[in-house]
């Protein structure tokens, strides 16, 4: 009997603990009951499909990061060759290769030194006639790709945090995908725009332009683009006034920017002289020094403000500016706000493409919760009715064990911070089905033992002890498939796998331990001639 007392104490303790963690917070928030903060923090979290929100899957185009690295090293090599007086042309072909052509045999030594110094991340292969192919080293490729994805994720995190979304979830998925979940966000378009915008800011000195066409622009340079310059397009706004339509003007600018977004210390919305929203920025000390020198040396010339390869405006440099500036671009208040947010959170290392986007309106989520609860309640009622009719008083034990199972399941999910999704609710309902299965297995065995002319107590003991290993086998097999489901699953399906997994574990406990203890309790200190089963 002492043994039984301890079992009862265990059962009651488990009930109180899991009820407290799993069920009470839900009741408390529904009926405004008092609840300590640490417990409220454990309240069962709802998935996006129940709460409503935006679910985005993006791919980081890691080739962009490789191309950038290749272009930079090729550019540095070109510069170095020029310094050393080696006449050769450097061209980049694809993200991981560039070619050098026309190296005179006499200057091969100097070329090799320059290459070793300026392109350490590349393997060099010599071809015929002084031409060389440079290929990025495989480990560098892997590293750059990984870095690009991590940086992209961090940048998105900063942007989402600035957006002020509560409980966002941003996670890497596979090699180059990022999953973004924003609960409660209604304006998908804006969220997507802010997350996906590259946000590379470059301030570049204008050599020629603006011009209406590319040919007009290049007339002064004889139709070719000098090697250290490039052509960019954008607004033809060269003063502080309102700009023309974007993409309508051509500029010839220095390839090397004066300052970039990396030099920014902060950015915020301001009003310009014409009371138009604009984005003001301040620079970090290093950027400010460079900016001050460049503006001081080039008073009277134009400076192109290039955002994501498009010129926003190209104001004239009136005086030396060191640590602050302003970007005009005929923005609305919201556009200016979003732009300053993007500039504050830094540029993405590569372009992002959207692979999947899903929006669940709050009303749709509420519908799902309602159907889920109805289905659970109906399932529970049907099972309870059946068990009571078929197994009579023993059925009561089974139903109590079943409720116990559901409470433990809720408690476990809340405790580990699992997310309840609609498929998760389905897992919940199915757990009831499995829970009953275990009890039926035990009860049918007890019936057999009773028919074999055993006493009630002996029959119950034998029924439980013989079924333990069967239950073990069936549960383990189901756990195996739940584990693969988890592995396969994304989002909502994962919720299902987790519910199923935890449900199986808690069911082993309730059907073997709790149900048995209930029987022992009912039979204790009593002579029972027949079992109601």
């Amino acid at each position, binding site marked *: 009997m002492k043994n039984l007392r301890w079992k009862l104490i265990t059962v009651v303790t488990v009930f109180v603990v899991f009820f407290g963690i799993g069920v009470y917070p839900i009741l408390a928030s529904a009926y405004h009951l008092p609840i300590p903060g640490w417990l409220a923090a454990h309240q069962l979290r709802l998935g996006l499909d129940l709460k409503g929100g935006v679910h985005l899957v993006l791919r980081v185009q890691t080739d962009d990061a490789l191309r950038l690295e290749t272009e930079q090293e090729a550019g540095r090599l070109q510069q170095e060759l020029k310094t050393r007086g080696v006449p050769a042309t450097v061209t980049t072909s694809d993200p991981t290769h560039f070619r050098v052509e026309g190296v005179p045999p006499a200057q091969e030594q100097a070329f090799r030194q320059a290459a070793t110094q300026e392109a350490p991340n590349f393997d060099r292969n010599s071809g015929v006639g002084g031409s060389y192919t440079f290929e990025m080293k495989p480990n560098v490729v892997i590293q750059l790709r990984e870095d690009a994805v991590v940086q992209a994720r961090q940048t998105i995190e900063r942007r989402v945090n600035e957006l002020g979304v509560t409980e966002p979830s941003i996670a890497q998925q596979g090699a180059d995908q990022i999953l973004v979940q924003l609960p409660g966000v209604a304006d998908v378009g804006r969220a997507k725009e802010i997350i*996906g915008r590259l946000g590379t800011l470059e301030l570049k000195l204008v050599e020629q332009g603006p011009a209406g066409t590319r040919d007009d622009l290049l007339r002064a340079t004889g139709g070719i683009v000098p090697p250290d310059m490039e052509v960019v397009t954008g607004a033809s706004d060269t003063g502080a006034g309102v700009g023309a339509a974007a993409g309508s003007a051509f500029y010839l600018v220095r390839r090397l920017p004066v300052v970039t977004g990396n030099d920014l210390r902060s950015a915020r919305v301001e009003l310009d002289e014409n009371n138009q929203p604009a984005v003001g920025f301040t620079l970090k000390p290093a950027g400010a020094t460079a900016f001050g020198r460049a503006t001081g040396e080039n008073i009277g010339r134009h400076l192109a403000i290039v955002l994501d390869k498009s010129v926003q405006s190209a104001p004239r440099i009136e005086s030396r500016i060191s640590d602050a500036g302003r970007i005009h671009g005929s923005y609305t208040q919201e556009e200016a706000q979003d732009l300053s947010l993007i500039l504050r959170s830094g540029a993405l290392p590569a372009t992002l493409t959207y692979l999947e986007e899903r929006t669940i309106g709050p009303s749709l989520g509420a519908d799902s919760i309602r159907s889920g609860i109805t289905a659970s309640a109906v399932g529970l009622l049907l099972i309870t009715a*059946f068990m009571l009719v078929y197994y009579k008083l023993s059925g009561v034990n089974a139903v109590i064990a079943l409720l116990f199972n559901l409470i433990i399941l809720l408690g476990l999910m809340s405790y580990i911070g699992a997310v309840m999704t609609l498929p998760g609710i389905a897992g919940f309902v199915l757990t009831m089905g499995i829970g009953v299965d275990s009890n039926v297995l035990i009860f049918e065995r007890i019936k057999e033992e009773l028919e074999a002319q055993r006493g009630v107590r002996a029959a119950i003991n034998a029924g439980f002890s013989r079924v333990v290993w069967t239950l073990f086998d069936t549960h383990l097999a189901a756990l195996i*498939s739940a584990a693969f489901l988890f592995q396969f699953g994304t989002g909502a399906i994962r919720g299902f*796998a987790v519910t199923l997994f935890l449900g199986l574990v808690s069911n082993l406990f309730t059907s073997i331990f709790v149900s048995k203890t209930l029987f022992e309790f009912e039979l204790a200190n009593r002579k029972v001639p027949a079992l109601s089963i």
Partner: protein
Amino acid sequence: MHIFKNTNFDFLKWRWHAIILSWVIILAGVAAIWTKGIPMGVEFAGGTVIIPQFEQAVSVEQVRTALDRTFRGGDIVVQQYGDPAQNQVMVRVPQVGAEQGGSLSATQTQIESALKQAGLPGFKVVGSEIVGPVVGQELRSKGFWATVLSLIGLLLYIAFRFQFSFGVGAVVATIHDLLITLAFLAFFRYDMSLNVIAAILTITGFSTNDTIVIFDRIRENLRSHRRDALDHVINLSINQTLGRTIITSGTALLTALALFFFGGEVLHGFAFTMVVGIITGTYSSVFIAAAIISFWRGSTARAAAHAPSTVAAPSPQQPPSRSKQNKKRAS
């Protein structure tokens, strides 16, 4: 109360009928898939789904006509969504906008403007789902491999806990259930979605559940009925567990039906798959799984040949009183 008391059905006698029936359903399913294909949900096929909620009732036909102009000849699906009183319609088109930049939702914009121009009542979009082709491709192979790997996991586990022939029986029965379920999905034109795959994976777990209970009893009886023919022991075991098999499948079916009727639009395919899977899982546990063991070991084999000494990992249960009781039930 007893649904089945001391039954003595000769299940193995019916195994050929069962196998033929299963093949008929499976082949019909293959024919349905061959001619009409498996309808793929938007997660797998890619495409754009939006759910507009109209201010007043609109017919599915009205919405379809509005879209026909923009998506001429396209494979447009328009369905009532959820409770009819809510005036929600699901629209699905196979296109998505370009993946580059933020324009994946270009098709959604097209649908919305087509609906606006058609003079339908005002609406707001309560949900949308846009899946590019890359994701669908990835999910298809992921779903396939998850199913295959979980089958291999089951085979290994049962082979380890029982005997290899039992593992084969369980896996054949499970594959049978998957094929029958796929056939029914094809007959009733349910979209293959992530939820349906989840249900299919769940079925692999639960159809094995029934099978294991029967196998467990066969293993137990093999020890106590060493002189009986294997087929006799198998029949005996199925009969002994029949009540339990029917009751638990019945209760599991009750919960799946609750999901089917009350679980809402999103879980419809999931619940349907579960319902079919539970029924076929029970059927295959009784008629198929054990029959495979019989085929594998030869139906005239004596039980002694399969006695526990050959069991790879005998379970620690089995109190000695076992044989007395089973002999009584066998007689």
